[in-house]
């Protein structure tokens, strides 16, 4: 328990409404004196508490430090014991080899891209068939349209991308009980993609885009992101066909907002890049948000350029008509051998483990077919002088001999006293 400071112990004692000399100085009234004493007492108490807190914190830190050192020592000790034992085993029989520190390279980041779509269950960067499904409910079709690679009765049929139509004013859909799906779509993507307070999409000089098409990719298809510069949508109407890409190849300073990187959607092809190099001025058909896997298209500009019909105004008597219009325009391209092209992209964090199998190591096997009889005789006499084994798997273990990861070789690897092997094992996270 803390003791009071001397100044308080030898100071004044409250003895009613009288004036008494004391250590505080001068003559003071008892009421003032009480206030002074109270203030001093509070200051002292604060100091004591602060000292105690500091003392407790130091004690706590010391205790934590001591425990941490104990644990660290125990880990080091256990590791050293194990290394000692395994060293001893090196000259005898052993089935495990410790990794050297330099043989483990953690956190290697690499970028991988692959085809966005799937055909017959395998990835491809080109989609030439576009199916919708009668199984999709009319409720969801009012908002978006799932586009499949095959008829949905096929076992390998999967949603490849989604088309939605949004209208800031709610036109283009059947409004029931004040519920407008097209308005909901516009608002939803505006909220996701635009900065707060920005109510309309801007494409080029056009700051008042009220009607949008949304093309978005399921997470499983786009992995981490849409690979910018490596997608191409072909849209055909009754008289024209336009091919759209992003302008990432011509963009030096990428715009990055709340939705990640933003590129303009322009006319062009992956092979020949943007038509902006040929046609001037550039027409901006939309915005591409590769980090979210979303492409926003100016519905009216697309309708006029590719020449297909849209339902707009407030006269719509059906829901989901406009997303069907874009689906038809895209699938028409597919019919004309202009595919929808796209790649996904993801960053992979890997750790590399370098397994160096020396010539003198691991030349015998516990495989039951490696021996004959019940006493462990090698099956072949030749193996006594020159054993040959064929490892097929590399197991990665912890200190408790628990198998945490396994890698298989593509073919059995011949190993003998004359052969060494270097195996690089990659483990992705």
């Amino acid at each position, binding site marked *: 328990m803390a003791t009071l400071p001397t100044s308080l112990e030898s100071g004044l004692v409250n003895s009613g409404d009288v004036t008494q000399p004391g250590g505080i100085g001068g003559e003071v009234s008892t009421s003032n004196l009480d206030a002074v004493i109270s203030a001093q007492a509070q200051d002292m108490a604060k100091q004591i508490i602060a000292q105690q807190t500091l003392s407790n914190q130091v004690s706590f830190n010391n205790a934590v430090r001591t425990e941490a050192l104990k644990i660290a020592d125990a880990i080091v000790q256990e590791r050293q014991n194990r290394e000692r*034992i395994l060293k*001893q085993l*090196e000259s*005898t*029989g*052993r*089935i*495990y*080899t*410790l*990794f050297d520190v330099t043989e483990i390279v953690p956190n290697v980041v690499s970028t991988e891209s692959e085809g966005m779509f799937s055909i017959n269950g395998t990835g491809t960067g080109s989609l030439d068939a576009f199916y919708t499904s009668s199984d999709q409910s009319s409720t969801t079709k009012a908002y978006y349209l799932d586009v499949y690679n095959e008829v949905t009765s096929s076992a390998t049929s999967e949603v490849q991308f989604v088309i939605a139509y949004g209208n800031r004013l709610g036109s283009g859909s059947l409004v029931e009980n004040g519920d407008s799906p097209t308005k909901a779509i516009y608002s939803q993507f505006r909220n996701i993609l635009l900065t707060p307070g920005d109510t309309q999409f801007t494409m080029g000089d056009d700051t008042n885009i009220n009607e949008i098409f949304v093309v978005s990719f399921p997470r499983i298809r786009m992995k981490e992101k849409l690979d910018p510069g490596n997608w191409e949508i072909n849209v055909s109407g009754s008289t024209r066909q336009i091919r759209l890409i992003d302008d990432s190849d011509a963009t030096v300073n990428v715009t990055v907002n709340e939705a990640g990187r933003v590129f303009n959607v322009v006319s062009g092809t992956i092979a020949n890049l943007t038509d902006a190099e040929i046609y001037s001025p550039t027409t901006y058909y939309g915005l591409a948000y590769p980090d979210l896997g979303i492409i926003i298209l100016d519905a009216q500009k697309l309708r006029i350029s590719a020449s297909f019909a849209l339902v707009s105004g407030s006269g719509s008597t059906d829901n989901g008509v406009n997303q069907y219009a874009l689906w038809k325009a895209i699938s028409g391209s597919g019919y004309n051998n202009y595919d929808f092209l796209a790649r996904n992209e993801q960053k992979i964090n890997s750790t590399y483990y370098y*397994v160096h199998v020396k010539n003198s190591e*691991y*030349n*015998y*096997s*516990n*495989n039951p*077919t*490696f*021996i004959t009889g019940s*006493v*462990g*005789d*090698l*099956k072949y006499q*030749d193996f006594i*002088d020159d*054993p040959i084994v*064929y*490892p*097929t*798997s*590399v*197991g*990665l*273990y*912890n*200190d408790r*001999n*628990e*198998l*945490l*990861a*396994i*890698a*298989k*070789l593509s*073919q*059995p690897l*011949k*190993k003998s006293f004359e052969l060494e*092997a*270097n*195996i*690089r*094992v*990659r*483990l*992705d996270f």
Partner: protein
Amino acid sequence: MKFLDNSSIVVDAILTKKGRELLARGFGEFNITQWALADDEVDYDLWNPTHPQGSDYYGIQIENMPLLEATPDETQSMKYKLVTLKKKTSRIPIITVGSTSITLTAEGDVARIVPNTSNFANGNKMLGYTAILSDSDLCDIYTVDPVTLNTEATIPRFVSDSEAAHSVSVIGYSFEVRAKKQILADKVGTVTIIGNETGGRVLITVTALQETTATIRT
């Protein structure tokens, strides 16, 4: 003159169930420190030392065989590990036990398993043996003579649809199994003993008999 081949083999690894479990648990429990090699799929009967085209072709059938993908079940992988032994070795270290068949007649019956390593002096004397009971509904298993090093392994594995039953792993120099009550029928399982240094294994069949009026203990 041709260039020497200094390339290394590059392979992708997958996490096992145990690896995923430890990774999910966090706190640095996922820590790979060592490696081993195995040749589970290889049948050395395919080695043909009488191949008419000579010694280069003795192993041709093995070398050309395609391999299966890795499985995440750690209990089904790396069964037959390669082992480092001195040249001119004529016998592989093998694990033996008194009997490879144990019958437990009633609940509480106990049988001891004392593994031994042949063909290798002091084999598995440091790291001991791992005993894996295939089905915890059959009996309990525990270590009688533990190893000094802290390497207590736990490799749970679900058995069929019963989530209560799983395999149990213990480490030591000798073990005991204690029968559990079998009400419906006789129950059969296995105890696999694996040498932690030499890698050999032996399989013991354990049968716990159904409880009858004659075997009920009060």
